[in-house]
């Protein structure tokens, strides 16, 4: 028996040690889920090096998981319990799941970058393995036998030889593990898995279908007021004056102003909406926006560009062999909105001593410091509690709404619920940044890539920025750190194929026209659109079949398998590169793209069949085929859902989406001016999941997004001979390309 197990018996760790804090929080009338979370008011250890931070064995035989990553609809509420249940040896329905509450869950980093399972889940797997080892050792000690003679199943430690076991609850007897996460704790052999790899149903789905799921938007606390924030008439404008009398006819409403943060509050939500519409306020001139028309080209000439070589492999040839061809092309991806269906919402209860904020933020823990700073409170007095909102795919307005609510609550001394309106969400959510990408390359007469050079003009993330600057603290003149965060938008700008030389140069822009934020698969949809379109251009020039051309340049067997299985789904017959020969009113074509996400994660092959109506320039995606290898699959139905979502959302972004603006503010503020995909545009989707149980699980939430643009563009080229290099592929743009004017 080791010292750790001994410690378990006598564990009465002082509250103040090891990152533990005492939480006592209850509110009458709160939602069932929130009160369930609040009910878990025991001393919590939050240090992510400790097993107790992640899981607790309850007296009733259940196990509670405390997960710093949150479920945004991507299925962590079942996938993470599957991982933990498997590793512990307990039924998955005996697992309770608490997520994203700074008072209850350890900080596992923001739920982003498709790392919920590959990082967060693996931390919890290791915690569960450590816990299982401790439980087995406890049972062995009690029964005076050797640990290796025991196994766990159904929440019991049982002798392998059969006979009675001891339940986890009996072994723990209400105490804590008091154990460090053991990075070497033996993990179960995937061959023995009975829970991981199964398409178990997500526990939140029934409530979402019966209307009983409590979203952020449905959450209320007693004595709460409804607020609507009035954003400035122009970006960067200051509030000159406000006419409070202008809302006097609307009962129960009041103006709240904190410097340039302007809001109305009311008992009745509709009255708050009405008041926000009639309130008269005078704003200064804004800080000004660039001219949208020609923005792409102007990025090259922005002041303050800093160049950085990101990839430098081989030496570009000074002299190319006979028959080599040189190509160059420029691609552009515009600013896009997260375009969440429900505008952002939050509730906050803030006073001079403490703050509680209910938020749909993907990063409650990271925001604890940010909120503490602008509220002038100690970090431990600020609690952020995650409640699911309308789907968010990076960072929409959720965190801004939370900051609005926090500052307004403190100003009026009552809990405040802020709900954004449609024009707030599309107008003011932080946007996916613009990306201008130039590629030049040379290909040999026998179809091999010689030189490759990518140059990107993209906004640079500010080093050390804790969070992207939120609107409300800035408007209210509170402490905030200015800067940009766009996510890792420079990845996958080099091809995964063999080449004599590859260079990638980032021309970092010091600013972005609109406040940027990471948006699903940050940067990669644009980079892979450029890279995989250019690869197709090279293949076309060499007269080589696009699948064959890619296979020639790949060595990684997983990459090769994904590509081959995508081709098989497409019933792709290899043939020298040629356009589909159709001169009819509607041209049909097929295209393919391959992505190895971040060159180190999930492998995706994407095939598309499209129809292009020549007269109108309208593109219809008819069929999508995707082979997908994300290593060990935890829940195949969850992975399928994420791939379907990645494909459809990115088709929408590629075909339809671009934020428009004038010199002062965003113009695309409703679903007419910022259209997204509808049912009429939804293709048939075939997915081939490649499960590799003995490999590490990799992210499935966004890798497939990266392959969509090029597969679509390559299919349009195959159909019509026209290359589309600017997103979105609007009918007008397609018509220009068809007539060679693009």
């Amino acid at each position, binding site marked *: 028996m080791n010292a750790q197990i001994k410690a378990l018996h006598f564990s009465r760790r002082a509250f103040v040690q090891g990152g533990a804090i005492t939480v006592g929080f209850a509110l009458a009338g709160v939602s069932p889920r929130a009160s369930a979370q609040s009910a878990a008011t025991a001393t919590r250890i939050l240090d992510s090096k400790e097993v107790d931070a992640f899981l607790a064995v309850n007296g009733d035989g259940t196990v509670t998981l405390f997960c710093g990553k949150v479920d945004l609809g991507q299925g962590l509420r079942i996938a993470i319990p599957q991982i933990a249940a498997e590793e512990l040896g307990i039924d998955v329905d005996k697992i309770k799941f608490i997520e994203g509450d700074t008072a209850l869950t350890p900080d596992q980093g923001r739920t982003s970058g498709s790392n919920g399972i590959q990082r967060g889940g693996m931390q919890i797997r290791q915690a569960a393995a450590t816990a299982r080892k401790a439980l087995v050792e406890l049972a062995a000690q009690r029964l005076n036998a050797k640990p290796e003679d025991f196994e766990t199943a159904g929440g019991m430690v049982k002798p392998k030889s059969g006979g009675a076991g001891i339940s986890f609850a009996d072994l723990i007897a209400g105490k804590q593990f008091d154990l460090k996460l053991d990075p070497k704790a033996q993990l179960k052999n995937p061959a023995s898995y009975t829970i991981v790899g199964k398409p178990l149903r997500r526990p939140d789905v029934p409530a979402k279908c019966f209307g009983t799921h409590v979203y952020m938007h449905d959450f209320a606390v007693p004595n709460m007021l409804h607020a609507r924030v009035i954003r400035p008439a122009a970006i960067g404008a200051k509030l000159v004056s406000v006419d409070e009398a202008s809302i006097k006819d609307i009962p129960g409403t009041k103006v709240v102003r904190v410097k340039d943060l302007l809001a109305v509050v009311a008992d009745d939500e509709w009255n708050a909406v009405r008041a926000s519409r009639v309130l008269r306020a005078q704003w200064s001139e804004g800080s000004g926006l660039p001219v949208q028309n020609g923005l792409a080209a102007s990025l090259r000439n922005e002041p303050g560009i800093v160049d950085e070589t990101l990839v430098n492999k081989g030496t570009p040839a000074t002299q190319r062999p006979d028959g080599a061809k040189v190509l160059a092309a420029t691609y552009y991806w515009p600013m896009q909105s997260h375009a969440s269906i429900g505008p952002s919402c939050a509730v906050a209860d803030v006073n001079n001593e403490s703050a509680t904020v209910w938020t749909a933020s993907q990063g409650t823990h990271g925001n604890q410091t940010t909120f503490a700073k602008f509220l002038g409170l100690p970090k431990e007095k600020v609690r952020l509690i995650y409640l699911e*909102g309308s789907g968010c795919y990076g960072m929409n307005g959720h965190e801004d709404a939370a900051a609005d609510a926090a500052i307004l609550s403190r100003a009026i001394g009552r809990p405040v619920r802020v709900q954004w309106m449609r024009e707030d969400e599309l107008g003011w959510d932080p946007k996916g940044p613009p990306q201008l990408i130039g590629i030049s390359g040379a290909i040999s007469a026998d179809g091999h890539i010689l030189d490759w050079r990518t140059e990107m003009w993209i906004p640079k993330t500010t080093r050390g920025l804790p969070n992207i600057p939120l609107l409300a603290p800035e408007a209210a003149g509170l402490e905030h750190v200015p800067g940009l965060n766009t996510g890792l938008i420079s990845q996958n700008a080099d091809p995964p194929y063999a080449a004599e030389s590859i260079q990638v140069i980032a021309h970092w822009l010091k600013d972005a026209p609109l406040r940027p934020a990471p948006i699903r698969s940050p940067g990669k949809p644009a980079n892979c659109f450029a890279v995989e379109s250019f690869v197709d251009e090279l293949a076309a020039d060499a007269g080589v079949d696009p699948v064959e051309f890619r296979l020639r340049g790949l060595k990684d067997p997983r990459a090769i398998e994904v590509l081959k299985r995508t081709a098989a789904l497409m019933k792709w017959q290899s043939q020298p590169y040629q356009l589909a020969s159709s001169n009819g009113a509607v041209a049909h074509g097929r295209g393919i793209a391959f992505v190895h996400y971040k060159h180190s994660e999930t492998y995706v092959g994407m095939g598309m069949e499209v129809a292009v109506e020549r007269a109108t320039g309208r593109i219809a995606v008819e069929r999508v085929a995707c082979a997908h290898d994300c290593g060990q699959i935890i829940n195949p139905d969850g992975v399928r859902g994420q791939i379907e979502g990645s494909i459809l959302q990115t088709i929408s972004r590629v075909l339809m989406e671009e934020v428009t603006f004038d010199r002062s503010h965003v113009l695309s503020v409703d679903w007419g001016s910022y259209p997204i995909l509808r049912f009429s545009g939804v293709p048939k989707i075939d997915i081939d999941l490649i499960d590799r149980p003995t490999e590490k699980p990799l992210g499935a939430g966004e890798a497939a997004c990266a392959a969509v643009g090029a597969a679509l563009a390559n299919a349009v080229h195959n159909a019509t001979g026209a290359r589309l290099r600017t997103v979105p592929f609007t009918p007008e743009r397609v018509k220009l390309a068809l007539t060679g004017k693009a």
Partner: protein
Amino acid sequence: MASYDLRINGNAQTAEAADADKPLLYVLRELGLTATKFGCGLGQCGACTVIVDGAAVRSCQIRVADAQGKMITTLEGLGSAATPHPLQTAFINEQVPQCGYCTSGMIMSAAALLQSNKTPSEDDVRTALDGNLCRCGSHVRVLRAVMAASGQRG
């Protein structure tokens, strides 16, 4: 403050509102019927769809004053865990929702369709739901679920 007599999910209910123009959506949510969601307030997204006198209606676009005397059904009234509507069963079987914010409106639009067309084609479903937006990309599962709920293979 005026009172409005409403018939919601088979029950008579009285709503107080200072403004006759208050959209039905806000009234429903204040009555605790929060399945119906605010999405745009413009009748463009379908998140707030309810059934009024047999037709799918955007509850953000109908005034409380105009909802008087009409039969209003929300997702809560369509079915429950104890007595699910076939669409709810099918949406669960197909594991349709991701974030699920649009799901209530999707089910209500589909329910209105199935009331008038018991065996719609997939194209009929696409047409009936074209005004219901989803950002997570649950569309293919929605189509499968609606076909399954109407006893057809999706």
